[in-house]
């Protein structure tokens, strides 16, 4: 008597498609929106981005009577409206690092590279999805910040400026572009170091530790070096007036872009060459 081993059979798949850049983008989008932790941190980040200008405007309005003329001259309505950029950049940077290091720490990167083994399209898709998310969240947040802070100041008849005034819209777009650049730079750093702690540490070092360190140099050295730092160059994107110690908006923007391109290029070469 022979016994036949029972078997399990896998349903066949009739429609078969190739991997394309757009499909990899769709996959990265799905990954991005299906992590609850990502959505929470973005939500909290954006709430703080919106909250700071409101707080700043309210405090300014409340203290206006006791402020010295010098202090009053120092308050600019756009500085108030853009107060959220500092929070937004931190939230977007941390999440940018996590977009890629989260895959390394959990091992997900192996599944990703089995499904899309040509590695560069994966990097482009991650960068593209994240750049769009960063801009699409930050730009409306800055517009809302502008109107909400203006509305608070308006009740006290203070510091009014129109969105159609020269340079205002440019600065709001520039602020959002700066945050986009920060997100892309952070993602590239994450791809280079492949560890969450290392990536966030390196980003914080470059953006928050090195700039104040420049103060140990004589002023003329400090200015000569600082204008080339990614954080300082990037900030000129949302400066309303030109800082005499920095390059103008466009050259500074190009320097900032240069840093992003170099970081992405290093990430691309390493991703292509290293074992996953």
């Amino acid at each position, binding site marked *: 008597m022979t016994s036949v081993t029972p*078997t399990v*059979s896998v349903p066949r798949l009739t429609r078969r*498609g190739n991997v394309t850049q757009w499909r990899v983008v769709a996959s990265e989008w799905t*990954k991005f929106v*299906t992590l609850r932790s990502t959505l929470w941190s973005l939500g909290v980040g954006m709430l703080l981005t919106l909250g700071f200008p409101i707080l700043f405007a309210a405090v300014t309005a409340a203290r206006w009577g006791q402020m010295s003329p010098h202090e009053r001259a120092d308050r600019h309505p756009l500085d108030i409206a853009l107060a959220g950029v500092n929070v937004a950049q931190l939230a977007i940077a941390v999440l940018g690092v996590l977009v890629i290091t*989260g895959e390394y720490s959990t091992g997900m*990167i*192996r599944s990703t590279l089995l*499904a899309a083994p040509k590695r560069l399209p994966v990097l482009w898709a991650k960068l593209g999805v994240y750049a769009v998310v960063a801009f699409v969240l930050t730009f409306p947040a800055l517009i809302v910040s502008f109107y909400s802070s203006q509305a608070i100041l308006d009740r006290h008849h203070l510091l009014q400026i129109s969105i159609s005034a020269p340079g205002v819209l440019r600065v709001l777009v520039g602020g959002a572009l700066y945050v986009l650049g920060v997100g892309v730079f952070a993602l590239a750093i994450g791809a280079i170091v492949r560890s969450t702690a290392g990536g966030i540490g390196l980003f914080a070092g470059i953006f928050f530790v090195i700039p104040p360190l420049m103060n140990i140099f004589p002023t003329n050295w400090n200015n000569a070096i600082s204008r080339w730092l990614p954080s300082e160059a990037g900030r000129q994107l949302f400066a309303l007036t030109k800082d005499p110690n920095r390059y103008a908006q466009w050259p500074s923007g190009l320097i900032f872009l240069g840093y992003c391109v170099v970081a992405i290029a290093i990430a691309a070469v390493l991703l292509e060459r290293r074992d996953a």
Partner: protein
Amino acid sequence: MQRSVNELVIEATGLTKDYGAKRAVDDISFVVKPGLVTGFLGPNGSGKSTTMRLILGLDAPTTGDVLVNGKHYREHPAPLHEVGALLEARSIHTGRSARNHLLALAKTHGISRKRVDEMVDLVGLHEVARERAGKFSLGMGQRLGLAAALLGDPATIILDEPVNGLDPEGVHWIRMLLRGLAAEGRTVFVSSHLMSEMSLTADHLIVIGRGRLIADTPIDEFVSRASGARVRVRSPQASELRRVLVRDGVSITSPEADVIEIDGMKANVVGELAAEHNVVLHELTPLQASLEEAFMELTRGDVEFKSVAA
């Protein structure tokens, strides 16, 4: 899409991988054929997982080459339809649900949600498909990994230690699955460090130890080579029988009272000699179950970390 059998093989030639100064895989060559379950056997740390990572293009070989279904893994325009793989190391983001994990992978090939749900059902994760994969047990993680491997209905299946962490029912299910996949003409390459597991599922064996190829043989040959002539006899007259059987080339041990094990003589000869000398036998068993021992014997010099006998 009919393809010639020769296109559906895994073919390694002189495959070598160094990690720093350590050689993980050392000049191995083999061919894994379709329609069979090929077991990839070796002690822990012998280079099985590394070999699989090389096949899948996750790591690049130091020298040598490996093709799967006629191409480097990376060069396949639709890799999930060609090769389904389950790696030993966890490859799932802990914060994502099982279903969304599969959905993200499916999107790379334009595979439908319906297929994702089919796979979830096939591996028995329906109840927990919407829960975070981080909460999964090892066995559930293995099932999710299998669903991912089967998602693209691949021609070739590569599984690294698939029964790890599975309950007996799950182990049985995997065996049936592997048999079924091979019966459909697919190439099935499964690693294990357990000989007993392989003896139940594999048709062919590739054995490695310390990164080197030790054997590449049909399982029947391995079994017959391994089992040799060993017979276990239980008898109230064991010591008398022992005297009768003594001759050159035969060694006899007595693991317990009334039981002897004879090495180098077939069961029928033992039985006949016993009858001739009027020795009563309560049991006469040819020992086939020494596969594990044969494997141990074969890989003895090739185990990375050996326990030192006291």
